[in-house]
């Protein structure tokens, strides 16, 4: 199963891959199917990607015509074909088990794990779920060989990585850097900040990710580096907020997003995201930041601990990091923010 739902706000790497080189996705899925002995690959693509869909459909048709997909791939006796399924706009359907429900014709709701997808996934069968970038990485590994691929990047984060850079930099876009480059390298690759602008904060990992300060650009962009710095790379989103950005408004928007996108299955997330948004709205309206932050922490902790899936578990990350790292809602900050 290729997860091409790519719904994390600020992520667009899979879209670029699918629109730019749809054959690489097909080739990678075929190889993955061969490796695990699957006969059918499902490609679940987000509904808002009509162009990627067209390119993929065309590529699949051509690949079938050339015998690259079908009952006898390249005369090898291996049968493999790809079916495309389109999402209908729900963020949650990018979750690795909600995607199964969506394809099976059920509600797109995450399932409790265990059982994990590799034991019981789509239609109850063992399923390997990976996103487009991960699958496409199979190709250079096969071409270059494992050791050569692993030589790129760091010990624990190998290979090149795509970063979806957006926000106040001069040239936002998709950047491929070896793992291990720092946040500063990335911002510089994008031409730095425009004249007179400074970085207030950077949101790493999208809405489900966490903020770092503008003076923390030396964080290495690796899994272990981000973890050591107490943040996450997530899906590779790097959203740069310059000094003019309204952080409180950004947080309120993130909270509204999670409230809208919660599937509604479990209580901590379904109601917790509502209470989180209400509390932030109260702060914005002049409420007492101290008591609201205490309340946010309690709600956030339960969402993180007791929610079924990653959505609820990370719905408070951005807010938490804004409080703890950026010092937002400390008395003086709040005055400014208003």
């Amino acid at each position, binding site marked *: 199963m290729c997860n091409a739902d790519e719904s994390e706000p600020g992520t667009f790497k899979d879209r670029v891959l699918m629109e730019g080189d749809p054959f690489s996705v097909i080739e990678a899925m075929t190889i993955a199917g061969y490796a695990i002995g699957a006969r059918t690959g499902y490609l679940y693509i987000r509904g808002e990607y009509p162009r990627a869909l067209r390119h993929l459909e065309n590529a699949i048709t051509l690949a079938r015509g050339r015998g690259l997909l079908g009952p006898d791939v390249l005369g090898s006796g291996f049968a493999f074909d790809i079916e495309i399924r389109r999402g209908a706009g729900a963020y949650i359907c990018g979750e690795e088990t909600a995607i199964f429900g969506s394809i099976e014709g059920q509600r797109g709701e995450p399932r409790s794990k265990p059982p994990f997808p590799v034991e019981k996934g789509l239609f109850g069968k063992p399923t390997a779920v990976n996103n487009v970038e991960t699958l496409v990485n199979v190709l250079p590994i096969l071409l270059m060989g494992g050791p050569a691929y692993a030589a790129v990047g760091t010990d624990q984060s190998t290979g090149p990585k795509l970063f979806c850079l957006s926000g106040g930099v001069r040239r936002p876009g998709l950047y491929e850097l070896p793992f291990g480059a720092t946040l500063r390298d990335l911002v510089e690759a994008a031409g730095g900040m425009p004249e007179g602008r400074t970085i207030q904060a950077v949101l790493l990992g999208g809405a489900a990710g966490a903020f770092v300060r503008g003076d923390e650009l030396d964080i290495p962009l690796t899994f272990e580096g981000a973890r050591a710095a107490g943040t996450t790379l997530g899906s590779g989103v790097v959203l740069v907020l310059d000094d003019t950005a309204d952080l409180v408004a950004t947080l*309120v928007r993130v909270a509204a997003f999670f409230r809208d996108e919660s599937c509604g299955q479990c*209580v901590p997330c379904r109601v917790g995201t509502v209470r989180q948004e*209400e509390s932030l709205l109260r702060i914005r309206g002049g409420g007492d930041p101290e008591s609201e932050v205490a309340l946010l922490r309690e709600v956030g902790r339960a969402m993180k601990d007791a929610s079924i899936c990653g959505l609820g578990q990370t719905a408070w990350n951005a807010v938490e990091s804004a409080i703890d790292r950026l010092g937002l809602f400390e008395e003086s900050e709040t005055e400014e923010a208003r």
Partner: protein
Amino acid sequence: MTVPVLLAPPRRLIDATIDGEQVRVPEGTTVLEACSGMGTDIPTLCYGDTLTPRNACRVCVVEVEGARTLVPACSRKLEPGMSVATDSERVRHSRKMVLELLGSSVDLSTTPQVDEWMERYDAEPDRFGPRAEAAALGVRDARHAGDHEPGDGSVAETVEQPVKVDNDLYVRDYSKCIMCYKCVDACGDQWQNTFAIGVAGRGFDARISTEHDVTLPDSACVYCGNCIEVCPTGALSFRTEFDMRQAGTWDEEKQSETTTVCTYCGVGCNVTLHVQENEIVKVTSPHDNPVTHGNLCIKGRFGFQHVQRRGDG
């Protein structure tokens, strides 16, 4: 002739630790089952003894050593060597928050045991602010996924709305609904296979609905009442119970329960008649009955009026 008795294959015994105590249970036992075996009380709301766990409410969470998040006791199976804490600070915090989040958004006045749990976990559902005004009938049912009016946070959003009374047999008071999915599962492929109700909407606007929100008489509902049987909050209730509660005459102290056999057909379902002042006020069915598991059809569930026609009309 002797009939062979089918026995399940023997199950391996596994050792685990719950709250520091060694337990030995058959493989496949859930944390909840093991806990009830040792007398440890775990609150549950969405768990149903006749249904597959949905893990939706999260009030039953426990802490498994080494796990990143808490896990639901109702569905998590014990594994060899697992160490479980059922009353750690983390567990108490999440249970308290689940109760507060539910209490602040749902009317839990007819949910059994919830007051006791609120007290046990020091839950204060009122601290999210005054409750928002109830929505008018149909407003929640018309909401679209992915969009909402943010407001200013001065009131705590709730699911409250007027009661749906659209037939003579049972009412749906979704102000009391905690979205446990039990009614949907009972109506759907786990028992009734009627699929009259399902979940509509997303997030906080998720709700139980008939197809296109039609009234029950216009829906596929066959009035088996199996959804009422499993509803843990009183959101679904007999019309008789609802009317008596409205009139202030509902009094469980005065009720007796008699389990007997349904007189309608040859299946022989067990029915439990709840009788108050010599009137049948509702009918349930024992969940441990090996044939029906608490399920009935419309006749056993609602067809009791003739019993109390006493020749006065």
